[in-house]
């Protein structure tokens, strides 16, 4: 194919052209100062993507500095490279990160989600790590409900279409590339109508000495382009992701990339094979802002310059302009800085894997990113200024009023409330989703999806890892700081319930337009809340992603600072699941009975209210509870452990009864009076875990020694019912019916 670069006459740089690139007049002045001249059209495009929020974090950087990022186990710090790396002992490390693909998924759910998975997997193997599992955290508008005529409204049908497309897209990419998707979370809420969230997580394993760096080091070293050819897909996607979604966003469909997981599988294997040789000086994936970002970032990290010739770049179609080649976000591409003299090693490996490869440039000592087309220079920009000197904005923050305490807690038919909650898609079984994901490839899935954390035996290192992602955005919209604290607390609690010790955190900050002071305030509060939580549990943040401009015509989404937390389980015997295991075990509550109803799922689902003061997190109490729980697990006293979250004690108990291989009955009596039954059953106070044990006395003894509140609340039975006595009244539910309601809900909605 004739893949000559087309060199058109550049359009004139007018204020309109500058504004169309999302560049402010002040930013333009800054560009002129850096270049000491006016930029040409190609250079303007380069600045526009590199200085987009997606690439530069210009609106969030001052906030992100508040996260704790250091610790004795940190091998590569957040922000240094594509992903942070944490030591897990015996010479092994893990690289993990979460990233969003919200905007592309809103427009084109299948490819948007698929390329999100591709991008995060590429971030991990760029570090030299072999990707071993993935998680995802998803948010959609409601997928249930009918209008007054009993028909499914258009918005619900659209939400289902997005949900189905996203799940299929993740399955398509993850299944084909052979990285198991072993867990995650999904919420359905009006706030995500028109702006779904697709946050994907990947974790990889590597030996310490295998850590690869993304620096263009060694003057004179050749620069290789490997992987898929560059096409016109995904043009300026990073800039697109840094705008609000509007009615016209459909027009931006070309900004959504198209993924080829087969090609990425080849690229993954070829890169990991290459990294076992001594040929690589630096490696960087081409994700957001593609060739532009990888070139200037490697040069900036290396303190060098990089010169590339676009004539040599493998292209999918003829007649592309420099602007298009540089801003393309075609997937499955890498930039590799090769030690001079080792070029043939690179060529041989990429020939073996039938992948395009080309020497496209060279490392220079002039600190410039220089782009040529043959002899013509089409862009020349100081690499460090471009990569690291994006403007930083201290946005205005406008506090929202503190949430008003609830004055009245509505009651109702509490017997009907439990199945209603279990049928709510946010709480219902996610089997419809994870059945479509290959969650067992790489033969390490020790706990199947559905328990408190995903548990994976990394056989390369013989280590058992637990991972979870959490965020209750209802708490966050009522009180962003407290909601963020709760997200960390819940993640740590989920890990503790699985028998794991938390190691580190990645986060994905999904917020609205930061130019609106109320949105920026939410972001700041949430970041500070997360940082407090990380300090309390002594877990560093290893990196993550910021996704702002999550707005639809109806307004900003509820702030959603998603937390991904990874922990280590010391022994196979400590692996614990959420589900009751047999009749005759005692059921205990660790923590208090609680009474906080603000922001509860009960109020939201049963009464349509998003109100009140969300539950307060006391990190000291929380951490003590987790430590005690882990000690109980290590002592072999715990048969099951399930954290108490959305839907309160009633839902927690029901899930433990119906979520496992077998249905198990239970008889519960809280043994107190004076607390309204709806509060007792459905409050969402933090720092609570329901466990089952064969030896209640030993548990009570150890808990008392550690000062952790604990009480026996019932026993598991061979009966067919879940019976809960609260405030003197006993309510009964057939376990099989609860199970049916819970397990079929999402499938029924999706086939309706």
């Amino acid at each position, binding site marked *: 194919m004739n893949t000559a670069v087309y060199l058109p006459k550049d359009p004139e740089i007018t204020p309109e052209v500058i504004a169309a690139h999302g560049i402010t007049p002040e930013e333009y002045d800054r560009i002129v100062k850096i270049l000491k001249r006016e930029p040409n059209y190609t250079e303007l495009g380069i600045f526009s993507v590199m200085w987009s929020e997606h690439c530069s974090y210009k609106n969030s950087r001052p906030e992100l500095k508040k996260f704790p990022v250091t610790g004795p186990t940190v091998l590569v710090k957040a922000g240094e490279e594509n992903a942070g790396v944490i030591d897990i002992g015996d010479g092994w490390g893990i690289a993990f990160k979460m990233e969003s693909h919200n905007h592309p998924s809103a427009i084109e759910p299948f490819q948007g989600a698929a390329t999100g998975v591709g991008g995060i997997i590429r971030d991990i193997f760029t570090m030299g790590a072999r990707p071993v599992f993935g998680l995802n955290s998803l948010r959609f508008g409601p997928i249930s409900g009918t209008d007054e005529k009993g028909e499914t409204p258009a918005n619900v049908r659209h939400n289902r279409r997005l949900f189905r497309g996203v799940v299929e897209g993740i399955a398509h990419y993850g*299944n*084909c590339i052979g990285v198991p998707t072993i867990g995650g979370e999904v919420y359905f809420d009006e706030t995500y109508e028109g702006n779904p969230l697709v946050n994907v997580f990947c974790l990889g394993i590597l030996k310490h000495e295998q850590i690869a760096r993304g620096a263009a080091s060694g003057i004179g070293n050749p620069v290789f382009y490997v992987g898929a050819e560059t096409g016109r897909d995904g043009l300026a996607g990073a800039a697109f992701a840094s705008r609000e979604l509007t009615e016209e966003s459909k027009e931006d469909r070309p900004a959504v990339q198209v993924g080829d997981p087969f*090609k990425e599988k080849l690229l993954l294997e070829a890169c990991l094979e290459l990294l076992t040789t001594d040929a690589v000086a630096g490696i960087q994936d081409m994700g957001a802002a593609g060739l532009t970002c990888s070139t200037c970032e490697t040069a900036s990290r290396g303190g060098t310059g990089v010169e590339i010739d676009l004539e040599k770049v493998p292209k999918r179609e003829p007649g592309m302009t420099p602007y298009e080649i540089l801003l393309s976000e075609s997937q499955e591409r890498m930039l590799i800085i090769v030690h001079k003299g080792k070029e043939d090693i690179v060529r041989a490996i990429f020939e073996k894997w039938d992948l395009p490869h080309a020497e496209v440039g060279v490392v220079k000592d002039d600190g410039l990113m220089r782009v040529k087309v043959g002899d013509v220079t089409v862009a020349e920009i100081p690499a460090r200024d471009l990569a690291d000197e994006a403007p930083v904005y201290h946005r205005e923050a406008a506090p929202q009023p503190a949430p008003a305490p609830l004055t009245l807690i509505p009651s109702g038919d509490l017997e009907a409330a439990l199945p209603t909650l279990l049928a709510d898609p946010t709480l219902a079984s996610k089997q419809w989703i994870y059945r479509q*994901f*290959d969650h067992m490839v790489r033969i390490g899935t020790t706990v199947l999806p559905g328990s408190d954390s995903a548990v994976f035996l990394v056989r390369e290192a013989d280590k058992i890892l637990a991972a979870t992602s959490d965020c209750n955005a209802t708490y966050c919209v009522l009180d962003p700081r407290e909601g963020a604290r709760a997200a960390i607390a819940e993640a740590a609690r989920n890990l503790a319930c699985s028998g794991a010790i938390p190691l580190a955190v990645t986060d994905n900050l999904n917020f609205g337009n930061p130019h609106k002071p109320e949105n920026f305030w939410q972001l700041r509060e949430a970041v500070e809340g997360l940082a407090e939580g990380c300090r309390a549990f002594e877990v560093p943040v290893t990196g993550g992603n910021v996704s702002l401009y999550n707005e639809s015509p109806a307004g900003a989404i509820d702030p959603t600072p998603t937390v991904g937390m990874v922990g280590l389980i010391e022994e196979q015997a400590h692996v614990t699941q959420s589900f009751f295991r047999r009749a005759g075990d005692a059921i205990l509550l660790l923590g208090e009975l609680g009474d906080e109803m603000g922001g509860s799922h009960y109020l939201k689902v049963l009464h349509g209210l998003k109100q009140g003061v969300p539950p307060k997190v006391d990190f000291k109490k929380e951490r003590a509870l987790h430590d005690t729980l882990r000690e109980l697990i290590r002592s072999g006293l715990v048969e099951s452990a399930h954290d108490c979250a959305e839907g309160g004690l009633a839902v927690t108990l029901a899930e433990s009864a119906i979520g496992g291989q077998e249905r198990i009955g239970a008889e519960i009596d809280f043994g107190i009076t004076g607390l309204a039954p709806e509060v007792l059953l459905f409050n969402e106070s933090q720092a609570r875990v329901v466990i089952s044990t064969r030896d209640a006395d030993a548990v009570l003894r150890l808990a008392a020694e550690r000062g952790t509140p604990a009480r026996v609340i019932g026993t598991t039975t061979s009966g067919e019912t879940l019976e809960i006595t609260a405030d003197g009244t006993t309510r009964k539910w057939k376990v099989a019916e609860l199970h049916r309601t819970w397990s079929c809900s999402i499938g029924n909605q999706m086939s309706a």
Partner: protein
Amino acid sequence: MKAAVLRFPGSNCDQDCYHVLSEHYRVPTDYVWHKECSLSGYDLVVLPGGFSYGDYLRTGAIARFSPIMKAVADHAAAGGLLLGICNGFQILTESRLLPGVLIRNRSLSFICEHRWLRVENNNSPFLSEARNGQLLNIPIAHGEGNYMASPETLAELEANGQILLRYSDAEGNVSDATNPNGSTANIAGICNAKRNVFGLMPHPERAADPRLGSADGSVIFQSIFKTLGVSAAA
């Protein structure tokens, strides 16, 4: 004995099969790249699962033209053991080393879950250690595992006892309700008339280590080792 695990571009269960054979059972095992031309010296050849050539055109349709496939056919013709798992099964049917075809699941969705399988015929080097009627809990993970064959082929398979595994429930009942993907006669795995080529959609390598929830797949590996006269570890 010596085992070969083939690697096609897009194979993604190759490392799992290799690990189970070499680390779990301590059997000498090599990867064999699809561009190789010889399989001499191997007693067992495994075609692993995955998405060879990205499932482009049809599952297994391009892999059958890989250089190694001539050696695979020769290995089978010479009576060597050939085990095709999932995409490996698809490649074997595309190569006509096993009869029938595998088309999209009737739900049109990818399905990953543990399933019960009933051993239909243990007269096979791959199931000699199992009882007829024995139930095995082994995961499936595929989008195109719906086995189809002409009535004549099916009658032949039945008559020769070539249907080795069927999808059942935990009690061993075989019915439409226990059929995950629409396969004709609930077929999960078949062998050739000479009984040395075995293709199955379920993943026995995912059910070798009890820490993963089930070790029922081990009976397939143990049968192979017994046939080849080796005692493997684990």
